[in-house]
């Protein structure tokens, strides 16, 4: 007679063995799993839901073309619900429980900061598709959105030029969190280096979701009445933009008097605003839907077909997701496996023909080279490109305008192999 303990042991062992064998047999055909970590509820759902759909579109597309390495690609969608600790929990679940090969996700900086330790601990792979403040380069993250030198500085240079209206006085208005703080710090240093005196720079921070802009818009008007051409650089976060622009339009601030250039307002945000009175205000991005090239035409058509609506627009973070996904798929093909370490090595120098024009290249600092566009808002909610760089600009992970960060280098290839070093990790190989 068996004692109950041995029986349980045998059963457990049997079950374990069975599971092992089954999984070994299945792995040849098992799909490659792709995690999607975008908020589908809560405050960030407004922006992030679209990115989830973009990843699903790309997965759908790759499966139609026969999958990857002969295997199907399967998206695992979770909802971190705009809750930052939940992001970390879900990231851990995706990597450990779902065993995904890569995760596409996050929008806010804090959500990225929250999952970062998890990805580093478990050696996962995250593609982050949103413009952000830089000052970071993790071995486990590829940043496909813009760094400040790919967005903010070209935009300000444009407004300073005769073509952009030769602005002399500057309002830097932002939401009080790290992206606007960093961007404004970099811009302040930049403006001062161009000889703009301190009294001609006004910096203003507002809380998240600020909805009453009367005072600030009146202040901007007052600041602009000093006789010098004034421009507003807005790093106001998504949700607060609608009331801000509505107040701006109704207060009669037109683009030709006080142009407002924004870094967080794209086609998707404008779809929620009546743009008739905002014509001429600007935005700086690496992509606009109105950019004309065959890749972009295909991208827009693919999106409209997938989402089954002719009214939906494309925007920069979607393009960044598109680039990220294509690059990852190319790297997997090159490496012959979806293994994180192999894919990471294959990512460097990976090129993708981007909807924004040019070949986007993944650099060894885990950031992209992308062109910069400045667009003016059109009455139909699209942007009209008024200025662009001649070619792709390489992203700086560490800004040259912040003294502490100017001395740091991010390079994940020999001899550096680190994200924030003052000197290479390895000496010369003799």
């Amino acid at each position, binding site marked *: 007679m068996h004692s109950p303990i041995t029986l349980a042991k045998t059963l457990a062992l049997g079950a374990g063995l069975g599971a092992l064998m089954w999984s070994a047999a299945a792995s040849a055909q098992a799909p490659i799993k792709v995690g999607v970590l975008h908020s589908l509820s809560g405050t960030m759902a407004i922006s992030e839901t679209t990115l989830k759909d973009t990843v699903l579109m790309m997965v759908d597309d790759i499966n139609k073309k026969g999958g990857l390495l002969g295997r199907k690609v399967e998206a695992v969608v979770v909802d971190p619900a705009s809750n930052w600790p939940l992001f970390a929990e879900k990231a851990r679940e995706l990597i450990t429980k779902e065993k995904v090969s890569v995760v596409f996700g996050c929008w806010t900086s804090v959500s990225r900061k929250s999952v970062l330790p998890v990805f580093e601990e478990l050696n996962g792979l995250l593609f982050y598709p949103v413009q952000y403040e830089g000052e970071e380069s993790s071995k486990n993250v590829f940043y496909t959105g813009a760094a400040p030198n790919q967005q903010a500085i070209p935009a300000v240079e444009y407004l300073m030029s005769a073509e952009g209206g030769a602005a002399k006085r500057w309002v830097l208005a932002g939401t009080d969190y790290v992206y606007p703080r960093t961007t404004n710090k970099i811009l302040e240093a930049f403006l001062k280096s161009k000889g703009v005196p301190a009294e001609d720079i006004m910096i203003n921070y507002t809380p998240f979701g600020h*909805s009453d802009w009367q*005072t600030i818009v*009146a202040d901007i008007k007052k600041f602009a009445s000093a006789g010098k051409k004034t421009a507003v650089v807005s790093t106001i976060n998504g949700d607060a933009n609608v009331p801000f622009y509505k107040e701006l339009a*109704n207060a009669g601030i037109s683009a030709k008097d006080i142009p407002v250039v924004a870094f967080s307002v794209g086609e998707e945000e404008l779809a929620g605003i009546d743009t008739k009175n905002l014509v001429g205000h600007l935005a700086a991005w690496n992509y606009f839907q109105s950019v004309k090239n065959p890749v972009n035409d295909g991208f827009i058509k693919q999106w409209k077909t997938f989402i089954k609506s002719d009214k939906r627009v494309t925007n920069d973070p979607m393009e960044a997701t598109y680039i990220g996904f294509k690059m990852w798929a190319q790297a997997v093909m090159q490496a012959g496996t979806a293994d994180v370490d192999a894919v990471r090595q294959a990512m460097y120098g990976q090129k993708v023909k981007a909807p924004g024009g040019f070949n986007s290249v993944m650099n060894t600092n885990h950031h992209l080279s992308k062109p910069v566009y400045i667009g003016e808002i059109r009455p139909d909610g699209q942007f009209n490109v008024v200025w662009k760089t001649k070619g792709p600009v390489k992203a700086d992970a560490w800004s040259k305008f912040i003294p502490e960060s100017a001395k740091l280098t991010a390079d994940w290839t020999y001899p550096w192999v680190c994200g924030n070093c003052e000197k290479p990790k390895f000496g010369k190989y003799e």
Partner: protein
Amino acid sequence: MSCLRLAILLIVAFWSVPAAAQDVSELIRQLGESDPKPAIEALAKQDDPKAKAALEALAKGLLFRRLEDGAVVIGDPDGKMFAITNAETGDVEDMLEPDKIEVIALDAAAKGLLEQAGIGGAKAAVPLDFAGAVKGLNADSFDTKRTAIDQLTALGDGRAIPVLQALADGRLFSRKSDGLIVIGDPDGNRLRLTDASTLKVVGIGDAGDLDPVFINNNLRNVVSEAVGKLGLLSPDAGQRRRAADALIGNATPDAVGLLRKAFAEERNGDVRSAMALAIASAEVAAEDKGARLAAVDVLAGSTDLRVRSLLQARLAAETDPNVRAAVQIAFDSVQRKLQVIGWAANLFQGISLGSVLLLAAIGLAITFGVMGVINMAHGEMIMLGAYTTYVTQEVFRAFIPQAYFDLYLLCAVPAGFAVAALAGIALERGVIRFLYGRALETLLATWGISLILQQLVRTVFGAPNKEVSNPSWMTGGFDLVGGFTVTWNRLVIILFCFLVLGAIALILRRTSFGLHMRAVTQNRDMAAAMGIPTARIDAMTFGLGSGVAGMAGVALSQIGNVSPNLGQIYIVDSFLVVVFGGVGSLAGTLVGAMSLGIVNKLLEPVAGAVLGKVAILVAIILFIQRRPRGLFALKGRAADA
């Protein structure tokens, strides 16, 4: 031989465009071979943009062979790198270092060939006639557009004004079918097209058949200056006034001359004073001391922000002591007036914020204040109202003629009320009626409802914001005095909010429904004993509160986001207002909302938006210690319930 080849080429070119394109690519590739001359010759005869671009680049020494694959590319220097365009396909491809490409060298004969073809020499002459200049407005580069605008202005042709005005307003188009530049004016849902070079109507078109002619902000300024100068002599008084106003502080000498001429002929008092101010703003820096003093005198009466900065600048620059003293006095007087106006503006903004808070809170004052239901789904009722507005707008856009579009908001108000009220009644009948007397459990249930409603709206309408436009009568604003702009949407909302409050007060005080409602809330059993259908009154009261929240949503859609999170923005503030004012008191809600709004706006310039709000929250916490039942506490037994 080459003649024959060319002939074949030409035939092919006319025969089928793609085939010709292939041959152009082929010819361009031949430019990279050891002797480019035949290819240059052949390409010069092609009317093809790629051929032209390649030859131009060749003439400038910017045509390269890419070492990697031998492709012929155009390199545009950008810093130390070159932006690479594939000359054969015309696609922009890459950034490359100089050592990755090799320039295609030319001998004298090849240069001669290029010059013969008119490439690398003088540019084609720019057309100077009116029609040509109009055509130039649709050029590819902003520089060329600028030239065209300057030409139009220089031609001094009166026909230019409507064209430039249309350009500034984004009404200038190029017709896709034939490239004709037309002005489009809305005519129903279509556009009436006018040929811009002849100003003759050429028919009706759809927006889809037209490409807008774009300009940038800089050109917009150039255009408005051009239009503005001509505007001084316009027969319309309003336009003359605006033109004069635009010249305050930045009139060029020839504009001052024009102003004087116009001023002398002007009869309209308003326009005259605007012109006088504009002239004075220029004269304040005149050589003559008397003229300066006279100008300062005129400026002292103004409340324009630009005048203040003008005087301030003058104060620093003035050397004559007499004039300096006069400037100082004038500056102080303007400054004083502006300060008073600033306070008034703050007050208005405070009332406006207060009215928003009040609108959001009135519904809660009924459901929570009167009925005692902690309705966490109150914010979602506001959201339903906002989405109803969106739907109403879309219905109007789809089915109702354009001319009546502005009326959509008036229809949205009852619609928003009805939708939210029905949702409220359903909520009361389905859930809340089982929970009377268990106030805290309604919190749990309504929180659940609010989650469900948010997700429902997200599922039906999608997560992104929805666009709700202001009707034209709520768009823009008017300058009251000295930079104090009153916007129409804020003004309308303030009025609407008091209208709603008044209506509720009437219903409560003057109707039998109101009487029943008050009776039921004061003593349910007694009311039932008197034959009042308490269950029905409960449902109707809750419906009323929810419906009012729905109307608040209609109003809030005019100033903010329409998104599934809309309700969450207002829920905390709404509860604060009701509690601060005193639960169960409409007057308390009114005073509470207004004082919170005004104090907030007075603090904001001093402490900043965030600290100001924190200070108010702390103040409320401390205030409740003094008056534990809010500003307008109910007295008697009801207070203990």
